[in-house]
Protein backbone atom coordinates (compact mmCIF):
# COMPACT_ATOMS: atom_id res chain seq x y z
CA UNK A 1 0.00 0.00 0.00
CA UNK A 2 1.03 3.59 -0.56
CA UNK A 3 1.81 6.13 2.01
CA UNK A 4 -0.24 8.65 0.04
CA UNK A 5 -3.59 9.01 1.79
CA UNK A 6 -5.44 10.70 -1.06
CA UNK A 7 -4.40 8.00 -3.49
CA UNK A 8 -5.61 5.31 -1.12
CA UNK A 9 -8.94 7.08 -0.90
CA UNK A 10 -9.16 7.31 -4.69
CA UNK A 11 -8.43 3.60 -4.94
CA UNK A 12 -11.12 2.84 -2.41
CA UNK A 13 -13.71 4.92 -4.26
CA UNK A 14 -12.74 3.27 -7.53
CA UNK A 15 -13.01 -0.19 -6.02
CA UNK A 16 -16.39 0.66 -4.49
CA UNK A 17 -17.74 1.80 -7.87
CA UNK A 18 -16.35 -1.29 -9.61
CA UNK A 19 -17.92 -3.50 -6.94
CA UNK A 20 -21.29 -1.82 -7.41
CA UNK A 21 -21.03 -2.41 -11.14
CA UNK A 22 -20.18 -6.07 -10.51
CA UNK A 23 -23.31 -6.52 -8.39
CA UNK A 24 -25.41 -4.72 -10.99
CA UNK A 25 -24.02 -7.13 -13.61
CA UNK A 26 -24.88 -10.07 -11.37
CA UNK A 27 -28.50 -9.00 -10.97
CA UNK A 28 -28.91 -7.98 -14.61
CA UNK A 29 -27.57 -11.38 -15.72
CA UNK A 30 -29.94 -13.26 -13.44
CA UNK A 31 -32.89 -11.10 -14.41
CA UNK A 32 -32.11 -11.47 -18.10
CA UNK A 33 -31.69 -15.24 -17.80
CA UNK A 34 -35.06 -15.53 -16.11
CA UNK A 35 -36.86 -13.25 -18.52
CA UNK A 36 -35.23 -14.97 -21.52
CA UNK A 37 -36.50 -18.25 -20.12
CA UNK A 38 -39.99 -16.78 -19.96
CA UNK A 39 -39.67 -15.54 -23.52
CA UNK A 40 -38.96 -11.86 -22.89
CA UNK A 41 -35.21 -11.28 -23.16
CA UNK A 42 -34.07 -7.88 -21.91
CA UNK A 43 -33.32 -5.81 -24.97
CA UNK A 44 -29.63 -5.01 -25.25
CA UNK A 45 -28.72 -6.85 -22.04
CA UNK A 46 -25.56 -8.35 -23.58
CA UNK A 47 -24.43 -4.95 -24.78
CA UNK A 48 -25.10 -3.31 -21.43
CA UNK A 49 -23.27 -6.13 -19.63
CA UNK A 50 -20.29 -5.62 -21.94
CA UNK A 51 -20.21 -1.90 -21.08
CA UNK A 52 -20.47 -2.73 -17.36
CA UNK A 53 -17.62 -5.21 -17.72
CA UNK A 54 -15.52 -2.47 -19.29
CA UNK A 55 -16.13 -0.08 -16.41
CA UNK A 56 -15.38 -2.84 -13.92
CA UNK A 57 -12.08 -3.77 -15.57
CA UNK A 58 -11.06 -0.13 -15.98
CA UNK A 59 -11.81 0.96 -12.42
CA UNK A 60 -10.19 -2.11 -10.83
CA UNK A 61 -6.83 -1.50 -12.58
CA UNK A 62 -5.42 1.04 -10.13
CA UNK A 63 -6.47 -0.61 -6.83
CA UNK A 64 -5.14 -3.94 -8.10
CA UNK A 65 -1.76 -2.42 -8.90
CA UNK A 66 -1.69 -0.74 -5.48
CA UNK A 67 -1.69 -4.22 -3.94
CA UNK A 68 0.75 -5.68 -6.43
CA UNK A 69 -2.09 -7.81 -7.80
CA UNK A 70 -0.89 -7.98 -11.42
CA UNK A 71 1.09 -11.20 -11.61
CA UNK A 72 4.83 -10.91 -12.10
CA UNK A 73 7.57 -13.48 -12.48
CA UNK A 74 9.82 -13.06 -9.46
CA UNK A 75 12.07 -16.01 -10.23
CA UNK A 76 15.25 -13.94 -10.53
CA UNK A 77 14.46 -11.66 -7.58
CA UNK A 78 17.35 -12.73 -5.41
CA UNK A 79 19.75 -12.73 -8.34
CA UNK A 80 20.72 -9.06 -8.24
CA UNK A 81 22.18 -6.91 -5.54
CA UNK A 82 19.91 -4.51 -3.73
CA UNK A 83 20.93 -1.48 -5.78
CA UNK A 84 20.53 -3.16 -9.15
CA UNK A 85 17.23 -4.64 -8.03
CA UNK A 86 15.91 -1.23 -7.07
CA UNK A 87 17.12 0.27 -10.34
CA UNK A 88 15.42 -2.44 -12.39
CA UNK A 89 12.22 -2.00 -10.44
CA UNK A 90 12.23 1.76 -10.95
CA UNK A 91 12.87 1.25 -14.65
CA UNK A 92 10.01 -1.19 -14.99
CA UNK A 93 7.61 1.10 -13.14
CA UNK A 94 8.63 4.00 -15.34
CA UNK A 95 8.13 1.93 -18.49
CA UNK A 96 4.67 0.87 -17.36
CA UNK A 97 3.83 4.42 -16.35
CA UNK A 98 4.69 5.87 -19.76
CA UNK A 99 2.88 3.08 -21.57
CA UNK A 100 -0.35 3.42 -19.60
CA UNK A 101 -0.22 7.19 -19.90
CA UNK A 102 -0.21 6.73 -23.69
CA UNK A 103 -3.08 4.25 -23.41
CA UNK A 104 -5.04 6.63 -21.19
CA UNK A 105 -4.59 9.56 -23.58
CA UNK A 106 -5.56 7.37 -26.52
CA UNK A 107 -8.70 6.21 -24.72
CA UNK A 108 -9.70 9.82 -24.11
CA UNK A 109 -9.08 10.52 -27.79
CA UNK A 110 -11.20 7.51 -28.72
CA UNK A 111 -14.00 8.82 -26.52
CA UNK A 112 -13.70 12.20 -28.21
CA UNK A 113 -13.85 10.72 -31.68
CA UNK A 114 -16.92 8.64 -30.76
CA UNK A 115 -18.47 11.85 -29.49
CA UNK A 116 -17.61 13.76 -32.66
CA UNK A 117 -18.84 11.01 -34.99
CA UNK A 118 -21.99 10.86 -32.86
CA UNK A 119 -21.56 7.10 -32.86
CA UNK A 120 -24.30 5.06 -31.20
CA UNK A 121 -24.11 1.60 -29.69
CA UNK A 122 -25.05 -1.38 -31.81
CA UNK A 123 -28.17 -2.74 -30.09
CA UNK A 124 -29.47 -0.08 -27.74
CA UNK A 125 -28.53 2.80 -30.03
CA UNK A 126 -27.33 4.90 -27.13
CA UNK A 127 -24.27 7.16 -26.94
CA UNK A 128 -21.52 5.17 -25.29
CA UNK A 129 -18.46 7.41 -25.26
CA UNK A 130 -18.95 8.07 -21.52
CA UNK A 131 -18.15 4.41 -20.83
CA UNK A 132 -14.91 4.74 -22.80
CA UNK A 133 -14.18 7.88 -20.80
CA UNK A 134 -14.59 5.97 -17.51
CA UNK A 135 -12.16 3.27 -18.67
CA UNK A 136 -9.73 6.06 -19.53
CA UNK A 137 -10.10 7.51 -16.03
CA UNK A 138 -9.43 4.02 -14.60
CA UNK A 139 -6.24 3.80 -16.64
CA UNK A 140 -5.12 7.20 -15.30
CA UNK A 141 -5.70 5.98 -11.76
CA UNK A 142 -3.37 3.10 -12.61
CA UNK A 143 -0.83 5.65 -13.87
CA UNK A 144 -1.09 7.54 -10.57
CA UNK A 145 -0.48 4.34 -8.63
CA UNK A 146 2.52 3.49 -10.79
CA UNK A 147 3.82 7.02 -10.26
CA UNK A 148 3.48 6.70 -6.49
CA UNK A 149 5.26 3.34 -6.52
CA UNK A 150 8.00 4.82 -8.69
CA UNK A 151 8.57 7.68 -6.26
CA UNK A 152 8.59 5.32 -3.28
CA UNK A 153 11.08 3.13 -5.10
CA UNK A 154 13.39 6.11 -5.75
CA UNK A 155 13.12 7.36 -2.21
CA UNK A 156 13.86 3.93 -0.82
CA UNK A 157 17.13 3.97 -2.69
CA UNK A 158 18.57 6.85 -0.71
Amino acid at each position, binding site marked *: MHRLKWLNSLNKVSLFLAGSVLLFM*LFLTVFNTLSTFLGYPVKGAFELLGFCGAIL*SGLALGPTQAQD*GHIRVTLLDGFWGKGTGKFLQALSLLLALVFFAVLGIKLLELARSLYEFEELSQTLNIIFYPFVLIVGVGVFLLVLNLGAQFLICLRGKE
Partner: protein
Amino acid sequence: MSLFSIGLWGIVLLLLVIFVLRLPVGFAMAIIGYLGFGLVVNFKAASSMLADECWKVFSSYGLTVIPLFILMGQICFYAGVNRRLYDTAYKWLGQVKGGLVHATILACAGFSAICGSNTATAATMSTVALPEMKKFNYDPLLSTASVAVGATLGVVIPPSVVLIIIGLQTGQSIAVLFWASFFPGILLTLIFMLATFILCWLKPELAPCGSKVSWKEKFKSLRGSVEMVVLFALVMTGLLAGFFTPSQAGGVGAFIALLIALLRKRLSWEGFKRSVEDTLKVSSMIMVILLGAIIFGRFLAITRLPYELAQFVAGLKLSGGMIMFFIALIYILGGAVMDALALLIITIPIFFPLATSLGYSPVWFAVFITVVTTLGAVTPPVGINTFIVASMAKEVPMTRIFKGIFLFIPCYLLLILLLIWFPELALLGEKLVLVR
Protein backbone atom coordinates in the same frame (compact mmCIF):
# COMPACT_ATOMS: atom_id res chain seq x y z
CA MET B 1 15.56 -6.93 -40.69
CA SER B 2 12.87 -9.29 -41.88
CA LEU B 3 9.44 -9.27 -40.24
CA PHE B 4 10.05 -12.80 -39.04
CA SER B 5 13.19 -11.87 -37.14
CA ILE B 6 11.49 -8.80 -35.68
CA GLY B 7 8.88 -11.21 -34.35
CA LEU B 8 11.55 -13.44 -32.85
CA TRP B 9 13.31 -10.48 -31.24
CA GLY B 10 9.97 -9.43 -29.85
CA ILE B 11 9.66 -12.74 -28.06
CA VAL B 12 13.20 -12.58 -26.70
CA LEU B 13 12.65 -9.03 -25.49
CA LEU B 14 9.35 -10.04 -23.92
CA LEU B 15 11.04 -12.76 -21.88
CA LEU B 16 13.76 -10.32 -20.79
CA VAL B 17 11.21 -7.77 -19.68
CA ILE B 18 9.22 -10.41 -17.81
CA PHE B 19 12.19 -12.01 -16.07
CA VAL B 20 14.68 -9.18 -15.63
CA LEU B 21 12.50 -6.10 -15.25
CA ARG B 22 9.84 -8.22 -13.53
CA LEU B 23 7.07 -6.25 -15.19
CA PRO B 24 3.67 -7.81 -14.66
CA VAL B 25 3.17 -10.29 -17.49
CA GLY B 26 0.14 -8.48 -18.95
CA PHE B 27 1.96 -5.13 -18.94
CA ALA B 28 5.01 -6.70 -20.58
CA MET B 29 3.05 -8.26 -23.43
CA ALA B 30 1.15 -5.03 -24.03
CA ILE B 31 4.29 -2.87 -24.04
CA ILE B 32 6.37 -5.13 -26.29
CA GLY B 33 3.39 -5.71 -28.57
CA TYR B 34 2.84 -1.97 -28.83
CA LEU B 35 6.49 -1.20 -29.55
CA GLY B 36 6.74 -4.03 -32.08
CA PHE B 37 3.56 -3.02 -33.86
CA GLY B 38 4.78 0.56 -33.95
CA LEU B 39 8.10 -0.55 -35.41
CA VAL B 40 6.53 -2.69 -38.15
CA VAL B 41 3.59 -0.42 -39.06
CA ASN B 42 3.98 3.00 -37.44
CA PHE B 43 3.49 4.47 -34.00
CA LYS B 44 0.44 6.48 -34.94
CA ALA B 45 -1.23 3.25 -35.95
CA ALA B 46 0.05 1.40 -32.89
CA SER B 47 -1.29 4.05 -30.52
CA SER B 48 -4.78 4.05 -31.95
CA MET B 49 -4.70 0.23 -32.03
CA LEU B 50 -4.00 0.31 -28.27
CA ALA B 51 -7.10 2.23 -27.34
CA ASP B 52 -9.30 0.31 -29.77
CA GLU B 53 -8.16 -3.06 -28.46
CA CYS B 54 -8.43 -1.98 -24.85
CA TRP B 55 -12.00 -0.86 -25.32
CA LYS B 56 -12.89 -3.92 -27.39
CA VAL B 57 -11.45 -6.41 -24.89
CA PHE B 58 -12.82 -4.69 -21.81
CA SER B 59 -16.32 -4.23 -23.24
CA SER B 60 -16.63 -7.72 -24.72
CA TYR B 61 -19.73 -9.52 -23.50
CA GLY B 62 -17.96 -12.87 -23.80
CA LEU B 63 -15.43 -11.82 -21.16
CA THR B 64 -18.03 -10.92 -18.54
CA VAL B 65 -17.98 -14.66 -17.85
CA ILE B 66 -14.71 -14.18 -15.94
CA PRO B 67 -15.77 -11.90 -13.07
CA LEU B 68 -19.07 -13.73 -12.71
CA PHE B 69 -17.50 -17.18 -12.34
CA ILE B 70 -14.81 -15.87 -10.00
CA LEU B 71 -17.47 -14.23 -7.87
CA MET B 72 -19.26 -17.56 -7.53
CA GLY B 73 -16.11 -19.25 -6.17
CA GLN B 74 -15.30 -16.34 -3.83
CA ILE B 75 -18.78 -16.23 -2.34
CA CYS B 76 -18.60 -19.97 -1.74
CA PHE B 77 -15.25 -19.57 -0.03
CA TYR B 78 -16.33 -16.77 2.30
CA ALA B 79 -19.49 -18.73 3.05
CA GLY B 80 -17.37 -21.64 4.23
CA VAL B 81 -18.39 -24.14 1.55
CA ASN B 82 -14.85 -25.50 1.36
CA ARG B 83 -14.76 -26.09 5.11
CA ARG B 84 -17.97 -28.10 4.99
CA LEU B 85 -16.80 -30.04 1.93
CA TYR B 86 -13.69 -31.00 3.83
CA ASP B 87 -15.75 -31.97 6.82
CA THR B 88 -17.82 -34.38 4.73
CA ALA B 89 -14.78 -35.95 3.08
CA TYR B 90 -13.04 -36.15 6.43
CA LYS B 91 -15.92 -37.87 8.20
CA TRP B 92 -16.19 -40.47 5.47
CA LEU B 93 -12.53 -41.20 4.86
CA GLY B 94 -10.72 -39.94 7.95
CA GLN B 95 -10.27 -43.25 9.71
CA VAL B 96 -8.70 -45.18 6.80
CA LYS B 97 -4.98 -45.19 6.15
CA GLY B 98 -3.95 -41.85 4.64
CA GLY B 99 -7.60 -40.93 4.95
CA LEU B 100 -7.02 -37.23 5.50
CA VAL B 101 -5.05 -37.00 2.27
CA HIS B 102 -7.87 -38.71 0.39
CA ALA B 103 -10.28 -36.33 2.08
CA THR B 104 -8.15 -33.34 1.06
CA ILE B 105 -8.03 -34.42 -2.54
CA LEU B 106 -11.75 -35.14 -2.68
CA ALA B 107 -12.59 -31.83 -1.02
CA CYS B 108 -10.29 -30.06 -3.51
CA ALA B 109 -12.12 -31.79 -6.36
CA GLY B 110 -15.45 -30.77 -4.86
CA PHE B 111 -14.40 -27.15 -4.46
CA SER B 112 -12.96 -27.22 -7.99
CA ALA B 113 -16.45 -28.03 -9.21
CA ILE B 114 -17.61 -24.56 -8.15
CA CYS B 115 -14.38 -22.58 -8.37
CA GLY B 116 -12.65 -21.88 -11.65
CA SER B 117 -9.11 -21.12 -10.54
CA ASN B 118 -6.43 -23.32 -9.04
CA THR B 119 -4.87 -20.52 -6.99
CA ALA B 120 -8.19 -19.79 -5.29
CA THR B 121 -8.65 -23.49 -4.64
CA ALA B 122 -5.13 -23.74 -3.18
CA ALA B 123 -5.58 -20.70 -0.94
CA THR B 124 -8.94 -21.79 0.35
CA MET B 125 -8.22 -25.48 0.81
CA SER B 126 -4.92 -25.01 2.62
CA THR B 127 -6.64 -22.95 5.34
CA VAL B 128 -8.95 -25.90 6.00
CA ALA B 129 -6.95 -29.02 5.29
CA LEU B 130 -3.46 -28.21 6.58
CA PRO B 131 -4.33 -27.63 10.26
CA GLU B 132 -6.40 -30.81 10.29
CA MET B 133 -3.60 -32.98 8.89
CA LYS B 134 -1.16 -31.36 11.28
CA LYS B 135 -3.41 -32.25 14.19
CA PHE B 136 -3.22 -35.92 13.25
CA ASN B 137 0.55 -35.85 12.76
CA TYR B 138 0.56 -36.33 9.02
CA ASP B 139 3.98 -35.86 7.48
CA PRO B 140 4.08 -32.31 6.04
CA LEU B 141 5.68 -33.81 2.95
CA LEU B 142 2.40 -35.46 2.13
CA SER B 143 -0.05 -32.93 3.60
CA THR B 144 1.33 -29.85 1.83
CA ALA B 145 1.80 -31.66 -1.47
CA SER B 146 -1.72 -33.06 -1.42
CA VAL B 147 -3.24 -29.58 -1.08
CA ALA B 148 -0.99 -28.11 -3.76
CA VAL B 149 -1.69 -30.83 -6.34
CA GLY B 150 -5.31 -31.30 -5.29
CA ALA B 151 -5.88 -27.62 -5.96
CA THR B 152 -4.63 -27.99 -9.54
CA LEU B 153 -7.94 -29.74 -10.16
CA GLY B 154 -9.36 -26.22 -9.94
CA VAL B 155 -8.81 -25.65 -13.64
CA VAL B 156 -9.22 -29.22 -14.87
CA ILE B 157 -12.61 -29.88 -13.30
CA PRO B 158 -15.09 -27.37 -14.72
CA PRO B 159 -15.72 -24.48 -14.30
CA SER B 160 -12.23 -23.39 -15.27
CA VAL B 161 -10.67 -20.02 -15.99
CA VAL B 162 -8.05 -21.70 -18.18
CA LEU B 163 -10.70 -23.34 -20.35
CA ILE B 164 -12.66 -20.08 -20.52
CA ILE B 165 -9.56 -18.29 -21.77
CA ILE B 166 -8.71 -21.01 -24.30
CA GLY B 167 -12.30 -20.95 -25.49
CA LEU B 168 -12.30 -17.20 -25.90
CA GLN B 169 -8.91 -17.09 -27.58
CA THR B 170 -9.64 -19.89 -30.04
CA GLY B 171 -13.33 -19.25 -30.59
CA GLN B 172 -14.53 -22.54 -29.15
CA SER B 173 -17.65 -23.14 -27.14
CA ILE B 174 -16.96 -22.84 -23.42
CA ALA B 175 -19.76 -25.29 -22.64
CA VAL B 176 -18.14 -27.93 -24.86
CA LEU B 177 -14.72 -27.37 -23.27
CA PHE B 178 -16.16 -27.60 -19.76
CA TRP B 179 -17.80 -30.91 -20.49
CA ALA B 180 -14.76 -32.20 -22.34
CA SER B 181 -12.54 -31.72 -19.30
CA PHE B 182 -15.08 -33.20 -16.89
CA PHE B 183 -14.00 -36.84 -17.27
CA PRO B 184 -10.24 -36.11 -17.34
CA GLY B 185 -10.79 -34.08 -14.15
CA ILE B 186 -12.50 -36.98 -12.40
CA LEU B 187 -9.83 -39.32 -13.68
CA LEU B 188 -7.03 -37.11 -12.35
CA THR B 189 -8.74 -37.05 -8.94
CA LEU B 190 -8.84 -40.87 -8.93
CA ILE B 191 -5.21 -41.08 -10.02
CA PHE B 192 -4.20 -38.77 -7.15
CA MET B 193 -6.05 -41.04 -4.74
CA LEU B 194 -4.46 -44.12 -6.21
CA ALA B 195 -1.04 -42.51 -5.79
CA THR B 196 -1.87 -41.64 -2.17
CA PHE B 197 -2.93 -45.22 -1.57
CA ILE B 198 0.33 -46.56 -2.99
CA LEU B 199 2.42 -44.02 -1.03
CA CYS B 200 0.75 -44.86 2.26
CA TRP B 201 1.12 -48.54 1.57
CA LEU B 202 4.84 -48.15 0.90
CA LYS B 203 5.46 -45.71 3.75
CA PRO B 204 2.79 -46.11 6.42
CA GLU B 205 4.55 -43.67 8.73
CA LEU B 206 3.64 -40.79 6.39
CA ALA B 207 -0.03 -40.91 7.24
CA PRO B 208 -1.51 -42.17 10.49
CA CYS B 209 -5.24 -42.81 10.89
CA GLY B 210 -7.75 -40.19 11.99
CA SER B 211 -10.44 -40.73 14.62
CA LYS B 212 -13.43 -43.03 14.23
CA VAL B 213 -16.71 -41.48 13.10
CA SER B 214 -20.15 -42.99 13.54
CA TRP B 215 -22.36 -43.70 10.52
CA LYS B 216 -24.91 -41.27 11.84
CA GLU B 217 -22.34 -38.49 11.82
CA LYS B 218 -21.16 -39.51 8.37
CA PHE B 219 -24.61 -39.11 6.88
CA LYS B 220 -25.20 -35.93 8.80
CA SER B 221 -22.03 -34.45 7.28
CA LEU B 222 -23.38 -34.99 3.76
CA ARG B 223 -25.68 -32.01 4.24
CA GLY B 224 -22.66 -29.75 4.25
CA SER B 225 -21.87 -30.70 0.65
CA VAL B 226 -25.33 -30.15 -0.74
CA GLU B 227 -24.56 -26.59 -1.84
CA MET B 228 -21.63 -27.70 -3.95
CA VAL B 229 -23.66 -30.43 -5.65
CA VAL B 230 -26.57 -28.09 -6.28
CA LEU B 231 -24.36 -25.35 -7.74
CA PHE B 232 -22.34 -27.70 -9.92
CA ALA B 233 -25.43 -29.49 -11.22
CA LEU B 234 -27.15 -26.19 -11.93
CA VAL B 235 -24.25 -24.63 -13.79
CA MET B 236 -23.22 -27.69 -15.78
CA THR B 237 -26.66 -28.93 -16.76
CA GLY B 238 -27.70 -25.38 -17.58
CA LEU B 239 -24.75 -25.15 -19.94
CA LEU B 240 -25.35 -28.64 -21.34
CA ALA B 241 -29.02 -28.03 -21.96
CA GLY B 242 -28.32 -24.63 -23.46
CA PHE B 243 -30.50 -22.82 -20.93
CA PHE B 244 -27.88 -20.16 -20.66
CA THR B 245 -24.66 -18.73 -22.08
CA PRO B 246 -21.45 -19.22 -20.05
CA SER B 247 -21.77 -15.69 -18.63
CA GLN B 248 -25.30 -16.40 -17.57
CA ALA B 249 -24.18 -19.67 -15.99
CA GLY B 250 -21.58 -17.75 -13.95
CA GLY B 251 -24.09 -15.07 -12.99
CA VAL B 252 -26.82 -17.50 -12.00
CA GLY B 253 -24.27 -19.65 -10.15
CA ALA B 254 -22.96 -16.65 -8.19
CA PHE B 255 -26.49 -15.53 -7.44
CA ILE B 256 -27.61 -18.94 -6.16
CA ALA B 257 -24.41 -19.23 -4.11
CA LEU B 258 -25.18 -15.83 -2.59
CA LEU B 259 -28.78 -16.83 -1.95
CA ILE B 260 -27.84 -20.10 -0.24
CA ALA B 261 -25.20 -18.36 1.85
CA LEU B 262 -27.60 -15.64 2.95
CA LEU B 263 -30.52 -17.99 3.64
CA ARG B 264 -28.33 -20.21 5.77
CA LYS B 265 -26.81 -17.11 7.38
CA ARG B 266 -23.31 -18.16 6.48
CA LEU B 267 -21.99 -15.04 4.79
CA SER B 268 -21.11 -12.03 6.89
CA TRP B 269 -21.19 -8.53 5.46
CA GLU B 270 -17.42 -8.47 5.80
CA GLY B 271 -17.13 -11.78 3.92
CA PHE B 272 -19.40 -10.49 1.19
CA LYS B 273 -17.34 -7.33 0.76
CA ARG B 274 -14.15 -9.34 0.60
CA SER B 275 -15.55 -11.75 -1.97
CA VAL B 276 -16.45 -8.79 -4.21
CA GLU B 277 -13.07 -7.16 -3.67
CA ASP B 278 -11.15 -10.37 -4.42
CA THR B 279 -13.24 -10.91 -7.54
CA LEU B 280 -12.40 -7.43 -8.80
CA LYS B 281 -8.68 -7.91 -8.26
CA VAL B 282 -8.48 -11.34 -9.82
CA SER B 283 -10.56 -10.35 -12.83
CA SER B 284 -8.62 -7.13 -13.29
CA MET B 285 -5.41 -9.16 -13.32
CA ILE B 286 -6.84 -11.60 -15.88
CA MET B 287 -8.25 -8.83 -18.09
CA VAL B 288 -4.87 -7.11 -18.19
CA ILE B 289 -3.18 -10.37 -19.18
CA LEU B 290 -5.77 -10.91 -21.90
CA LEU B 291 -5.36 -7.35 -23.16
CA GLY B 292 -1.59 -7.80 -23.20
CA ALA B 293 -1.91 -11.10 -25.03
CA ILE B 294 -4.18 -9.58 -27.64
CA ILE B 295 -1.89 -6.62 -28.26
CA PHE B 296 1.14 -8.90 -28.42
CA GLY B 297 -0.85 -11.19 -30.70
CA ARG B 298 -1.55 -8.28 -33.05
CA PHE B 299 2.17 -7.68 -33.28
CA LEU B 300 2.95 -11.37 -33.88
CA ALA B 301 0.23 -11.66 -36.49
CA ILE B 302 1.64 -8.77 -38.46
CA THR B 303 5.09 -10.34 -38.45
CA ARG B 304 3.44 -13.58 -39.64
CA LEU B 305 5.65 -15.45 -37.18
CA PRO B 306 3.04 -17.93 -35.90
CA TYR B 307 2.09 -18.75 -39.46
CA GLU B 308 5.67 -19.26 -40.64
CA LEU B 309 6.56 -21.22 -37.54
CA ALA B 310 3.64 -23.56 -38.16
CA GLN B 311 4.78 -23.89 -41.78
CA PHE B 312 8.30 -24.63 -40.64
CA VAL B 313 7.27 -27.30 -38.16
CA ALA B 314 4.87 -28.82 -40.68
CA GLY B 315 7.80 -28.94 -43.09
CA LEU B 316 9.88 -30.96 -40.63
CA LYS B 317 7.63 -33.93 -41.35
CA LEU B 318 7.66 -35.00 -37.72
CA SER B 319 4.84 -37.22 -36.60
CA GLY B 320 1.96 -35.51 -34.81
CA GLY B 321 2.81 -37.41 -31.64
CA MET B 322 6.39 -36.09 -31.71
CA ILE B 323 5.15 -32.53 -32.08
CA MET B 324 2.66 -32.97 -29.24
CA PHE B 325 5.52 -34.33 -27.17
CA PHE B 326 7.62 -31.22 -27.86
CA ILE B 327 4.69 -28.93 -27.15
CA ALA B 328 4.08 -30.72 -23.85
CA LEU B 329 7.77 -30.42 -23.04
CA ILE B 330 7.77 -26.69 -23.75
CA TYR B 331 4.77 -26.22 -21.48
CA ILE B 332 6.27 -28.33 -18.71
CA LEU B 333 9.65 -26.55 -18.86
CA GLY B 334 8.05 -23.15 -19.40
CA GLY B 335 5.50 -23.86 -16.68
CA ALA B 336 8.38 -24.60 -14.34
CA VAL B 337 9.86 -21.12 -14.63
CA MET B 338 6.89 -18.85 -15.19
CA ASP B 339 3.25 -18.49 -14.34
CA ALA B 340 1.41 -21.19 -16.23
CA LEU B 341 -1.62 -19.11 -17.20
CA ALA B 342 0.53 -16.36 -18.66
CA LEU B 343 2.57 -18.91 -20.58
CA LEU B 344 -0.59 -20.40 -21.97
CA ILE B 345 -1.91 -17.06 -23.17
CA ILE B 346 1.36 -16.17 -24.89
CA THR B 347 1.70 -19.52 -26.62
CA ILE B 348 -1.86 -20.29 -27.73
CA PRO B 349 -1.69 -18.15 -30.87
CA ILE B 350 1.41 -20.12 -31.90
CA PHE B 351 0.62 -23.69 -30.89
CA PHE B 352 -3.10 -23.81 -31.42
CA PRO B 353 -3.05 -23.35 -35.22
CA LEU B 354 -0.16 -25.81 -35.33
CA ALA B 355 -2.07 -28.52 -33.47
CA THR B 356 -5.22 -28.10 -35.51
CA SER B 357 -3.24 -28.10 -38.76
CA LEU B 358 -1.83 -31.47 -37.67
CA GLY B 359 -5.37 -32.75 -37.42
CA TYR B 360 -5.79 -32.70 -33.65
CA SER B 361 -9.27 -31.88 -32.41
CA PRO B 362 -9.31 -28.33 -30.97
CA VAL B 363 -11.31 -29.59 -28.01
CA TRP B 364 -8.84 -32.37 -27.29
CA PHE B 365 -5.90 -29.97 -27.57
CA ALA B 366 -7.57 -27.54 -25.17
CA VAL B 367 -7.96 -30.27 -22.54
CA PHE B 368 -4.44 -31.53 -23.18
CA ILE B 369 -2.78 -28.16 -22.60
CA THR B 370 -5.02 -27.46 -19.62
CA VAL B 371 -3.62 -30.55 -17.90
CA VAL B 372 -0.04 -29.67 -18.85
CA THR B 373 -0.57 -26.07 -17.76
CA THR B 374 -1.98 -26.99 -14.38
CA LEU B 375 1.06 -29.16 -13.75
CA GLY B 376 3.15 -26.00 -14.17
CA ALA B 377 1.32 -24.50 -11.20
CA VAL B 378 3.09 -26.87 -8.78
CA THR B 379 6.50 -27.51 -10.32
CA PRO B 380 9.60 -25.69 -9.02
CA PRO B 381 11.04 -23.13 -9.14
CA VAL B 382 7.92 -21.08 -9.97
CA GLY B 383 4.81 -22.94 -8.88
CA ILE B 384 2.08 -20.58 -7.81
CA ASN B 385 0.07 -23.26 -5.99
CA THR B 386 3.14 -24.42 -4.14
CA PHE B 387 3.91 -20.85 -3.06
CA ILE B 388 0.41 -20.39 -1.74
CA VAL B 389 0.52 -23.60 0.24
CA ALA B 390 4.01 -22.73 1.52
CA SER B 391 2.79 -19.33 2.72
CA MET B 392 0.12 -21.12 4.75
CA ALA B 393 2.50 -23.75 6.14
CA LYS B 394 5.39 -21.49 7.15
CA GLU B 395 7.12 -24.09 9.30
CA VAL B 396 7.62 -26.46 6.33
CA PRO B 397 10.71 -25.74 4.21
CA MET B 398 10.01 -25.10 0.52
CA THR B 399 12.32 -27.89 -0.61
CA ARG B 400 10.34 -30.39 1.41
CA ILE B 401 7.08 -29.27 -0.19
CA PHE B 402 8.58 -29.60 -3.66
CA LYS B 403 9.89 -33.02 -2.71
CA GLY B 404 6.37 -34.11 -1.87
CA ILE B 405 5.11 -32.68 -5.13
CA PHE B 406 7.57 -34.78 -7.10
CA LEU B 407 5.81 -37.83 -5.75
CA PHE B 408 2.65 -36.70 -7.52
CA ILE B 409 4.11 -35.60 -10.86
CA PRO B 410 3.79 -39.11 -12.35
CA CYS B 411 0.02 -38.74 -11.88
CA TYR B 412 -0.09 -35.89 -14.40
CA LEU B 413 2.19 -37.74 -16.79
CA LEU B 414 -0.09 -40.76 -16.57
CA LEU B 415 -3.13 -38.63 -17.40
CA ILE B 416 -1.27 -37.00 -20.31
CA LEU B 417 -0.37 -40.42 -21.69
CA LEU B 418 -3.93 -41.63 -21.23
CA LEU B 419 -5.17 -38.57 -23.10
CA ILE B 420 -2.81 -39.34 -25.97
CA TRP B 421 -3.69 -43.04 -26.08
CA PHE B 422 -7.42 -42.56 -25.55
CA PRO B 423 -8.39 -39.19 -26.99
CA GLU B 424 -12.01 -40.24 -26.42
CA LEU B 425 -11.50 -39.28 -22.78
CA ALA B 426 -11.66 -35.64 -23.78
CA LEU B 427 -14.05 -36.13 -26.67
CA LEU B 428 -16.70 -37.92 -24.62
CA GLY B 429 -17.93 -34.70 -23.04
CA GLU B 430 -17.97 -32.93 -26.38
CA LYS B 431 -20.24 -35.60 -27.81
CA LEU B 432 -22.51 -35.25 -24.82
CA VAL B 433 -23.02 -31.57 -25.58
CA LEU B 434 -23.37 -31.98 -29.33
CA VAL B 435 -25.75 -34.93 -29.20
CA ARG B 436 -28.42 -32.68 -27.81
